[in-house]
């Protein structure tokens, strides 16, 4: 397979050695689990249990909200003790959580098992939605929504993204090494759900064991396995699509516009568990790492487990953590308290010491060196955007494509003036998106106005033609 060379990006130290020494372990299940209602892209789910109610493991406890939402299931059997705001790691403010007291019995809720190959694709998409499955790469976009979108197109190319490019994260690497069969099973289910013609699994060249495991599991099937160079952010959805297909997702569009649907390998494994074992998304693999942790490793944790419990499972803190980060060091979020729970998006927790971080120096003026545009994987001109963002020139920011910024942080990384470019862009983005929304709205209104004018003009023409015709008939009769 011909790979398109990725443009831009950085070669970064992956920091994977320590966390991949041990196989994936099961994390301890605590006495109290905290399940946030807002743990996917789109609106929060709505609780469908009330405090005092007994729930079983895998039982739906919250149904999808208004837009782009997902089901949430009880991670253990026990009693709902409260539905209240608790601190979480994935958003700044505390958010409403269903708190469940674990009864330790782990009684399963009986979901009807299904046979993926006999369901229609639409029913299969629907069923995957009921498993509470969202994109596990970090964006947590509801998988069913994505599949429904893709199912309206023919000849889809399913890409399974195992290119885990961000430093420190190794949960996908470990998943591919140990559960390649799950991924391939999930791949077939997803292919059927969207009627895909092809499937490609992509992983980076720094994961040879994962490659070997996948190749063994693949066993001569038509699912292709492709190795991409480990350049950050090679695993970004749009970057990966360009590398593998040579085509670009149009701005403002979706991968399905060019016949591609991209899913994380973890999502495929979760789909396999749901379809094959009737176990909805109630656990995920989390990389616990950073120099402050005694034994960095990958744990399979129930959603709702406090991060502190996972760190205990990894031998506790060896040093005081200077910073707790959920996600990688390039795009992750820092958070304040390790009582925050694991959610569907939690791929990695870094307890970082000062040695792990390279904080910025003093911010100097931009010297227009252009290093930022050289590394930008979206081919933007960060230095120009930086000037425009300072003066809030929203139309110009829009024209130069700020909305296409993927906030990967590459420009920040190389900036000799140590300008926090990504943060500036994050701050300016809402303005630009609002501007784009207003423009889209105006264009729609213009189209409707023009269509109406045209219709009115046509009706008038026809009316006049009829009158003319009638007059002619009348005068004709007279003469």
């Amino acid at each position, binding site marked *: 397979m011909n790979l398109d060379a990725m443009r831009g990006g950085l070669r970064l130290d992956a920091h994977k050695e320590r966390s991949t020494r041990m196989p994936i372990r099961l994390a301890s299940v605590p006495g109290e689990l905290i399940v946030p209602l807002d743990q996917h*892209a789109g609106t929060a789910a709505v609780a469908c249990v009330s405090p005092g109610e007994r729930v079983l493991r895998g039982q739906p406890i919250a149904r999808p909200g208004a*837009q782009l939402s997902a089901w949430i299931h009880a991670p253990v059997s026990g009693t709902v003790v409260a539905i209240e705001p608790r601190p979480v790691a994935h958003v700044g403010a505390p958010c409403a959580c269903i708190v469940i007291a674990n009864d330790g019995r782990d009684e399963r809720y009986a979901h009807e098992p299904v046979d993926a190959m006999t369901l229609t694709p639409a029913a299969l998409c629907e069923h995957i939605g009921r498993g509470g499955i969202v994109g596990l790469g970090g*964006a947590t*976009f509801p998988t069913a929504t994505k599949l429904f979108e893709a199912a309206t197109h023919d000849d889809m190319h399913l890409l399974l993204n195992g290119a885990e490019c961000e430093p420190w994260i190794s949960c996908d690497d470990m998943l591919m090494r140990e559960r390649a069969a799950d991924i391939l099973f999930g791949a077939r289910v997803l292919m059927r759900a969207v009627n895909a013609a092809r499937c490609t699994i992509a992983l980076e060249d720094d994961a040879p064991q994962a490659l070997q495991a996948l190749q063994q599991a693949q066993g001569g099937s038509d699912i292709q396995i492709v190795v991409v160079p480990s350049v950050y952010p090679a695993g970004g*959805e*749009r970057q990966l699509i360009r590398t593998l297909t040579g085509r670009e997702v149009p*701005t*403002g569009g979706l991968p399905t516009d060019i016949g591609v649907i991209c899913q994380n390998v973890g999502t495929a494994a979760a789909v396999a568990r749901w379809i094959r074992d009737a176990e909805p998304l109630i656990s995920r693999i989390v990389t616990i790492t950073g120099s402050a942790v005694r034994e960095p490793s990958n744990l399979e944790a129930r959603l709702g487990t406090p991060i502190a419990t996972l760190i205990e499972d990894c031998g506790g803190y060896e040093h005081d953590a200077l910073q707790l980060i959920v996600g990688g060091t390039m795009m992750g979020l820092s958070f304040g308290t390790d009582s925050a729970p694991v959610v569907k998006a939690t791929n990695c927790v870094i307890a970082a010491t000062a040695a792990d971080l390279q904080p910025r120096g003093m911010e100097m003026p931009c010297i227009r060196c252009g290093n930022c545009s050289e590394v930008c994987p979206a081919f933007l001109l960060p230095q120009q955007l930086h000037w425009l963002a300072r003066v809030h020139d929203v*139309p110009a920011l829009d024209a130069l494509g700020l*909305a*296409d910024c*993927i906030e990967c942080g590459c420009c920040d990384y190389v900036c000799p003036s140590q300008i926090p470019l990504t943060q500036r862009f994050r701050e300016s983005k*809402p303005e630009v*998106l*609002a501007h*784009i*929304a*207003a423009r889209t*709205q*105006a*264009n*729609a*209104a*213009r189209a*409707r*106005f*023009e*269509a*109406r*004018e045209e219709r009115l003009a046509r009706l008038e023409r026809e009316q006049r033609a009829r009158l003319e015709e009638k007059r002619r008939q009348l005068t004709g009769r007279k003469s």
Partner: protein
Amino acid sequence: MLTTIVIVAVLAAALAASIWWSAPRPDRIDDLARRIDALLPQTQCRRCTFDGCKPYATAIARGEADINQCPPGGAATASAIADLLRREPLPVDARFGAMPQIPEVAWIDESVCIGCTKCIQACPVDAIVGASKFMHTVIAAECTGCELCIPPCPVDCIEMRPAPLRIPVAVNR
């Protein structure tokens, strides 16, 4: 001597040609109107006294209207047009009315609506659906908040309400 004359003559001719080329001409009016129209908010509210955004844009292009007659566009639109026309920006003339701070859309009290279709005919963007003797309703997503449907209603069942929040769809997900 001759060289100098030739050079000066060529330069003068080039300058004259460029001035001629950039001067407003009837066949350019359409193009200019289209570019002005692209800057207008497309509310189609007629506060500018013209029959919609495109007619107003054409009037500006012809020099028959000023650039400060668009309340929904506000200062941003006025200055964008001023930029396009290389003119001094003007604040919006208050005589042409004002727009609410928060975007609004029309809402029909369906229990009162008698199905007269007058509002449907008034709506410049076909955002009201309904038929004669049947109640009407506003497609909130298509409503521009122009308020043109309010005066024709014989039973005063239309009111302006805050527009539903339109979550900007992130370009990347």
